[in-house]
């Protein structure tokens, strides 16, 4: 197997995130000599976190300028690490930061890049990437002859690397070779983050359960009236009690821009499906969702799936869900919330 460079950026606290550890696990599984390239305001703690992973070298670009997730500086740091490591395969987690920067780096190195990889394996010493096309509607295995080949792995596809508790030196102090990079001139400054208040947070990537809400929540109910306010209350109540994450179909998300009764908790950020995200959760519960393939791709990566729908023939559920409850979601969710306390 060819030599591998794993690129990882540190978090605000100096550690490596779960996605980075997943990429590390994939890199170690390939069998080639591994170099780890770290980027961040401080990198020694991150190197220590994975000191015992078996990497042959630890390289790092360190400095305050490289603490900000920003194309100019991230691309400069990654390019320098790639040149210093000189590895034909470059692996990184598909975080927003690397997804922004690494395609440009691949171009600078006259290499190629593949993103949204769900696996990178070696068959007879040749690496092959598995990824989805047409928004998770077909899966392909591909290989390339060009090098370096930069591969971004989607988070949540493999178990993260962790040190064996009894392994000597599993975590500790790693010898890190500093790679010197002059921070490039940039016109961009990261000024902060916007996030919903803690009690309004509806997107929880690490949640066990994904609740998918469809436009049915905003339609006329059995009494002939729309109950959007109650729908929102039920959905938010469930999210709080179950610490679940919220996804929405395209139709319910688009209502916000069309002046109809809306769920205020639902934004485009929540959209799952063909033009939304495809989050990875252990369990998914869809409510009031209708539709066919374009919506169903939203829970392609949800392992156990159940649906509540008044239509027993709903394309969202038949053949895609494990269980379909033909029932009124308002009524069921009222009881679910009561049971969850």
């Amino acid at each position, binding site marked *: 197997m060819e030599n591998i460079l794993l690129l990882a950026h540190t978090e605000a606290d100096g550690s490596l995130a779960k996605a980075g550890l997943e990429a590390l696990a994939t890199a170690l599984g390939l069998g080639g000599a591994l170099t780890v390239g770290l980027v961040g305001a401080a990198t020694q703690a991150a190197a220590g976190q994975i000191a015992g992973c078996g990497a042959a070298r630890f390289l790092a670009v360190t400095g305050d300028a490289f603490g900000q997730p920003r*194309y*100019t500086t991230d691309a400069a740091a990654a390019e320098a690490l790639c040149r210093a490591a000189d590895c034909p395969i470059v692996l990184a987690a598909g975080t*927003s930061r690397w*997804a*922004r920067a690494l*395609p*440009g780096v*691949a*171009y600078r190195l006259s290499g*190629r*890049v*593949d*993103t*949204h990889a769900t696996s990178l394996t070696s068959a007879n010493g040749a690496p092959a990437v598995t990824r989805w*096309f*047409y928004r998770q509607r*077909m*899966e*392909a*295995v591909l*290989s390339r*002859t060009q090098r370096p080949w930069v591969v971004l792995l989607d988070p949540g596809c493999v178990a993260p690397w962790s040190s064996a508790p009894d392994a000597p030196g599993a975590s500790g102090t790693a010898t890190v070779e500093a790679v010197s990079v002059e921070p490039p001139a*940039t*016109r*961009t*400054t*990261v000024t*902060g*983050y*916007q*996030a*919903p208040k803690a009690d309004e947070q509806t*997107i929880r990537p690490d949640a066990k359960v994904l609740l998918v809400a469809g436009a049915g929540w905003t339609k006329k109910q059995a009494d002939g009236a729309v109950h959007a306010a109650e729908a929102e209350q039920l959905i938010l109540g469930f999210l709080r009690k*179950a610490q679940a994450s919220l996804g929405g179909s395209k139709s319910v998300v688009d209502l916000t*821009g*069309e002046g109809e009764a809306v769920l205020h908790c639902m934004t485009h*950020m929540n959209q799952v499906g*063909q*033009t939304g995200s495809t989050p990875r959760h252990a369990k998914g*519960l869809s409510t009031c969702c209708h539709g*066919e393939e*374009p919506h169903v791709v939203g829970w*392609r990566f949800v392992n*156990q*799936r*159940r649906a509540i729908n008044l239509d027993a023939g709903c394309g969202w559920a*038949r*053949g*895609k869900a*494990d269980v*379909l409850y*033909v*029932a009124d979601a308002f*009524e*069921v969710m*009222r*009881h*679910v919330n*009561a049971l*969850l306390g």
Partner: protein
Amino acid sequence: MSTPFQIVVCGSFVPDPLQTLEPVTGPAGPSLKNEMMLPAVLDPWAGHALFEAANLARKTPGSKVWLVSLGAKAKLQQVMMTVAQKAPFELVALDGPASGFTDSFETAAALAAAIDGIAGLDRARLLLFGGWESASRGACSTMQMVAERLGITEQFQGVDQIAVSDDGSFEVLERVEGGRHQVSVCTAPPALLGWATGNLPEPRNNPQVGMANMRTVMPALQRAKAAPIGNAGLAFSGVALPKQQRQTRIVKDMPAEEIAREIVAWMSEE
């Protein structure tokens, strides 16, 4: 008032999301069965980029929007009949494959060359827009490489909002992990913005805008240069639809309370 922008939007068409897609493999690699027969729509993220570009141009007098599109000419013409009614732009067409299986590196080279050839384009005022990925290839890499080829190193991806200040600087909201937005300020163009969904609804069809656009769209389609994408060095060893079909248990006539109990029990299982 800020300086007018020159906004170049890259975007092509994709099969209508409601169509059933089936991969086939030929001598040239994988493609979609009956690809040329499938109804096509403007790629949704490229569409958001175009609508945001039109909105920004409207709010910044003197700005201009180009749409650079790589695809089979006949299909482009069909899609433009609808898209041209949504927003004012000048089309730059490239006659080549818009398949999801084409390589982003070579696609980026073709797009960058087309942008480079736009007469009178002021690079100092250039905002390069596109979808943060496409609904076909989903590469999430094409626009970054287009920008690199044009020497643009201020880049943003997953953009949902741009707000321009009077001094010409602009604030950008990019999607990051955990349902948050990263807020950045860029002091001046040129810059790349790879759009997520933004906040604008799809504009209503405006026949007047459509007629004005079509005066330039048809000549642009006739002038479209051939842009073959070779996929050099890229090999697919298999393309397949997901096979898993679940045996759905349909539960009818169960009281809501009982369903709720079953759901809560299921949620608490490991």
